[in-house]
């Protein structure tokens, strides 16, 4: 699948910024930012992206609940979701995959390979479909 627009929800401003720079630099994707789950849902509804990256731990609405709501929305449920998570939460995020996400990435990520890792997850999903 072709990616043009990515919506990234992450509560840490610095990490958000580094991830945005990295994705724009390495892949040319246009990256829109949200700092929590609520903002992510609002921005996704306003301008549906091709891919949503969701941090698991966020204030207001965490990544899991955000994913669940995205998958209940007929106009947004087709958008692939990838979780971003700390190593310590790896087991939890594996459970979170049942909510409909296509995969997860472990933080800290290497900004030079982040886009490639995302593409790999999406290719794996395309092959399965």
């Amino acid at each position, binding site marked *: 699948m072709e990616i043009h627009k990515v919506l990234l929800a992450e509560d840490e401003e*610095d*990490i958000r910024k580094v991830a945005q720079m990295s994705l724009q630099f390495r892949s040319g994707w246009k990256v829109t930012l949200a700092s929590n789950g609520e903002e992510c849902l609002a921005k996704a509804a306003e301008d549906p992206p091709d891919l949503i990256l969701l941090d698991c731990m966020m204030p207001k609405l965490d990544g899991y609940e955000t994913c669940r709501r995205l998958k209940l929305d007929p106009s947004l449920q087709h958008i692939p979701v990838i979780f971003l998570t700390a190593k310590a939460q790896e087991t939890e995020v594996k459970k979170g995959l049942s909510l409909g996400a296509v995969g997860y990435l472990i933080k800290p990520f290497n*900004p030079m390979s982040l886009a490639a890792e995302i593409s790999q997850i999406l290719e794996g999903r395309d092959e399965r479909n």
Partner: protein
Amino acid sequence: MEPHGKTPAEILPNPLLEAAIQPEMILDMEFRGILVADADWRIRYVNRTVLRAAGCSPEDLLGEHLIVAINKIPHRGALEDLQHALVRLTVSPPERVESLIVPVRLPGRKFLRVHSMPFRPPGYASGYLLAFTDATREGEIDEMKTDFISVASHEMRTPMTSIKGSIELLLGGYAGELPAESTELLGICLTAVDRLIRLINDLLDISKIESGKMELHLAKLNISDCVHKSMRSLRSLAEVNKVTIQAKHDERLPEVMADRDRLEQVITNLLSNALKYSPADKEVLIRVAAVDNVVRVSVSDEGPGIPPDQVGRVFDRFQQLAGAKKGTGLGLAIARALVEQHRGRMWVESELGLGTSFYFEIPAISGE
């Protein structure tokens, strides 16, 4: 001279002084539980403090193996952690005075300190002396410290991640080609940040272990697979240090129940230590063998060895021995705690000038 012109010895008549220092009276003092076991861990003496805390009569405990005796304690649910600690003691007996704090649920007491020590009086049978003291305050402070480390480490990890990511972007050409000096300086930053991240991860591991929040995801596995994966991850370190890693495995190894990631962490820690201390052009040997009901892994180097007076401290936290190479000082403490969580044990043998071998064992799955 005392105010009344008498010295303490005169105030306290000598016979009374002698009575006061009768061993039995000291042993029965409120604050300390005393237990003496023989070399086979059969209980030979307990004082009244132990009997009171256990709610048992002397007949219940004397002559029984320590572990059997614990099972006779009416409210042993409150002493579950103590029970585990004592089982570990009998499996790997203390070779010198050792002490640890365990949580308990006794009236007014949340933590006990257990001192254990072997004794071998000349001309008498050998055995072990255990002393139990109230360590509630100490334990609570320790808990607060563990919580603090956990929160502080989490808070430090996020900015570290941003720093690391920014450096990697710059080194990757995000701001165009950099002058050689900038590349070199950023390289130094990246190495330092990586080291800090390792330290933070180690601190988080230690705080999880100490607060009992370390969860293992157990699955059947062959330890050889973990060894191979660790060896692959250390290939470049081995090349830089010009050391070869030689692996030897028994042909038919039983499987173990273990957490793959954590076991790899243990093996990687031992191997990377061995690589760091091994002289160039020498070999580091890792052996995986089936011994009785366990799988035993040993990692041996031909490095300088550990001085005998320091061998006993290698597993202590933040214990960097004289001449130690850069590290967090937590790796071996974590490795041993992880092995113990797998119901195993870890120990070290070292000879000055000849090298060091670290060993660990994990129970094999029976019936293999």
